[in-house]
């Protein structure tokens, strides 16, 4: 069972060993992941953030100009310019390169260097490692496992790929294994056993039909891939199981990230349900780009006020300006009330997990200063609805 609902974001980064940030695309997941890792480092942890596809300027801030599959440490001066963080904290970052990660996995489980080579050169493998949906998700989790095993990090914060189905990483290892385990293509590789040879005829006919549609070259690539892959499935399967166990482990925390926009909040509610179905719980919820609430007046009351300003007494220009001012406040109160209502739909699903609200900021978040500013909202003491 994963780390349950946390009382605050501070508790998440102090207690968890692994933090997985999930949510739909374009809601500030990468930024949130970076902020959590920075604060972890500030509190004395050896933290690393795994990013998937950071916006260019954020990548530069984290020193990720080039795709680098190995973690590198960020100079303390940069993330702690005032030198007021805990002295033993460290911060590292890396950008996931799923193909390199996959290649390393193949090399690790190949019986001989020759077997590894043959797989890496195969065209079908290149599609699997480069373009297959789900590979990126799986490799993000694989990288997580690698950092967990090989690195001496206390806090690993992972971003998840911006897919529509943002919980694909939960199923990705299983899906990939199913693919690598395909029976039809396996049968084809054992022509020496007589019983299978009979099945082989039917299979061959089946494949001929497929190759009529997509061409024989494609089928040749696939068959030689499965031939090269022979014997490696067990290693892959064990590894995938270990990754799954790690994701569902007691020191893993899921942080749900959303923006206040309606579609994003709906997706977040959907994720919360899916996580729960999988027996995983949300440790905390971050809501980005929230409109300020601007007091407590009801929009209807404010609009009534606008109407009363149509008529005398009083200066006409001042009345018109005041009416405009009230109408504007009514608009923003409508948005604020609606946002709170939508967000409550998610909060109802995540029990006592902490919720933090990050308001609309004047500029997009690129540098350590701005990341710190987001941090002040995430790690502020809970105040109810922002």
């Amino acid at each position: 069972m994963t780390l349950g609902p946390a009382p605050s974001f501070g508790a998440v980064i102090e207690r968890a060993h692994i933090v997985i940030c999930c949510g739909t695309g374009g809601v500030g997941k990468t930024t949130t992941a970076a902020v959590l890792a920075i604060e972890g480092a500030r509190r004395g942890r050896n933290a690393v953030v795994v990013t998937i596809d950071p916006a260019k300027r954020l990548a530069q801030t984290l020193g990720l100009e080039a795709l680098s599959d190995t973690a590198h440490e960020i100079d303390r001066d940069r993330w702690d310019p005032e030198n007021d963080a805990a002295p033993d904290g460290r911060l590292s970052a890396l950008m996931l390169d799923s193909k390199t990660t996959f290649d390393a996995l193949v090399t690790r489980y190949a019986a001989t260097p020759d077997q590894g080579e043959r797989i890496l050169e195969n065209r079908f493998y290149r599609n699997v490692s480069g373009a297959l949906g789900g590979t990126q998700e799986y490799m993000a989790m694989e990288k997580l496992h690698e950092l967990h095993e090989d690195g001496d990090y206390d806090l690993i914060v992972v971003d998840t790929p911006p897919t529509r189905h943002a919980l694909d990483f939960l199923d990705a290892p299983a899906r990939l294994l199913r693919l690598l385990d395909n029976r039809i293509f396996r049968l084809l590789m054992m022509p020496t056993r007589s019983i299978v040879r009979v099945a082989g005829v039917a299979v061959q006919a089946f494949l001929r039909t497929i190759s009529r549609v997509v061409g024989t070259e494609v089928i040749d690539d696939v068959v030689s891939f499965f031939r090269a892959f022979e014997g490696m499935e067990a290693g892959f399967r064990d590894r995938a199981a270990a990754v799954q166990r790690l994701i569902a482990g007691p020191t893993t925390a899921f942080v749900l990230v959303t923006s206040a926009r309606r579609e994003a909040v709906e997706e977040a509610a959907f994720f919360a349900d899916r996580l729960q179905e999988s027996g995983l719980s949300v440790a905390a919820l971050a809501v980005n780009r929230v409109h300020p609430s601007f007091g407590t007046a009801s929009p209807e009351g404010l609009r009534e006020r606008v109407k009363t300003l149509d008529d005398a007494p009083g200066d006409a220009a001042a009345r018109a300006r005041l009416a405009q001012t009230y109408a504007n406040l009514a608009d923003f109160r409508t948005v604020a009330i609606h946002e709170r209502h939508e967000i409550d739909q998610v909060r109802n699903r995540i029990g006592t997990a902490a919720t933090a609200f990050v308001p609309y900021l004047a500029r997009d978040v690129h540098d350590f200063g701005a990341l710190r500013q987001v941090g002040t909202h995430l790690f502020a003491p809970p105040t109810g609805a922002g």
Partner: protein
Amino acid sequence: MELERFCSTSRVVIVAGKGGVGKTTVTATMALAASRAGRSVLVLEIEGKSGLAAAFGKPPLTYEESDLAPGIRGRTLTADQALLDYLRDHGLRRISKRLVSSGALDVVATAVPGMQDILVLGKVKQLERAGVADLLIVDAPAAGHAISFLLSARGLLDAVRVGPIRKQAQEVVELLTDPERCQVLLVTLPEETPVNELVETAFSIEDLAGVALGPVVVNAMYQADPFDPPLTPDRVLADATAAERFVGDIEAADLAAAATFRDSRAEIQIAQVRRLAERLPLPQIQLPYLFTADIGPAEIDTLTGAFERGVGALPALTAR
């Protein structure tokens, strides 16, 4: 530019943009604008569960066509269904079940990158050729994927040298690269990162995929002019006195804060729209930010009015 002209520039319009920028809202808006211009419209939802039907106050779309509004029909288009159609059309119905149940299909789809996209786009092409509507509007996958979606046909031509799938890919490339038949309508928000990503996406789509770009739709712009001079609580109180109304100090502070917030966001939006115009020489259509809770028929109606005005303001020569 006249709306009728705009809506007959090409028979297929693919609406694309990063997640959360309002692609589906723009799809619905364009559909309504086109139907008002007298064109019959079929909306195609690629990823499913996008809320497109809700914008018209209708239950979710299915693979079977349904009516969304007068002159507007809608349906989903999934790779799995498109594949079954494809196999049926090519006399392979018998093996389709086995393909799926044995998992061989997953293997083949992986062996041929982009095959699922090709099947979907192939279906779009088939509908276009069949003339099922004057205008087909495709609510495309989110940005990153939109590029691979549009590039899939070219990639497949490299991977598959023979066979009906290759022919399918060739026909899809012909559709995509013919500006009379197909164009892409990009959607963004007037904010820094979405603008940056839109510019990159635009160049990729034109240069790599060779697909023509229509105007850019900038969604969710604040409309009102800034308060001049800027509103402070003191100014609110002064106005209240002159208007002979009572406004409390706390209310004055809230009123001023909301006004200042709007003005500062609007300033950022205007700066980003300008930056977009400098970096991407495409005409823009701006749609207003709506303060309402849901996007339903009334909101789409409002947005369509703005869309029509935006099209009206386009220079005639940008038509492609």
